[in-house]
């Protein structure tokens, strides 16, 4: 099972969590990325490539389900304008055992950062700039190649 959603709607963490927990699995791992409150960012805008984004996320989820024998995987990504404390992305994995759920969750968020066509623009102090890619994201994604 797999659910991938890309939308401008505010992400309800409780609802996401309830959905991934409903699988009957023994272990549920989740990661939630939020707009940080300590970073002086007033607005974070996320642009994406409609169609290609969903396909990239579905391919990632398919890969994780096969590699870790997941019972369920869930990726919910917001696009558009968002503000500090709001959720940018929810990743949830459900598996019979905890190791699989935890590893697959880390894999999905690491790969999503480098393989899904999203671009972040930050507004702070009235100035707007595109976020530069980080080498650490490439390194995090690369460790799953093995």
């Amino acid at each position, binding site marked *: 099972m797999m659910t991938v959603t890309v939308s401008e709607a505010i992400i309800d963490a409780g609802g996401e969590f309830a959905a991934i927990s409903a699988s009957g699995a023994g272990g549920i791992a989740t990661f939630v990325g939020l707009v940080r409150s300590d970073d002086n960012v007033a607005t974070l805008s996320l642009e*994406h*490539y409609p169609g290609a984004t969903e396909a*990239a996320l579905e391919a990632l989820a398919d890969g994780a389900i096969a590699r870790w024998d997941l019972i369920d995987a869930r990726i919910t990504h917001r696009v558009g304008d968002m503000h500090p404390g709001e959720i940018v992305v929810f990743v949830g994995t459900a598996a019979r055992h905890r190791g699989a759920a935890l590893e697959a969750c880390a894999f999905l968020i690491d790969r999503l950062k480098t393989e899904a066509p*999203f*671009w*972040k623009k930050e507004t702070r102090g009235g100035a707007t700039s595109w976020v*530069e*890619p980080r080498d650490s994201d490439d390194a995090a994604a690369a460790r799953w190649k093995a």
Partner: protein
Amino acid sequence: MTIELLYFAWVRERIGKASETVSPPETVTTVAQLIDWLAADSAVHAAAFVDRQRLRAAVDQVFVALDAPLGNAREVAIFPPVTGG
């Protein structure tokens, strides 16, 4: 060949539009050649594409290297490295 071009993030902002439809000559067979051809006729495109190291591309929604062949591409997207999640 008619190709729908899509631009994202600062590539879109610099070019000033999110998409355009172009008909490159048959000598244009790779993404890199398409970028050269676009830059040759337009100062705006040339400025947007000045640093090729910072450009990424997708052909018919599949991510490819800039030297990838266009084949019978209907949609080519040009954009900066992704920064999502």
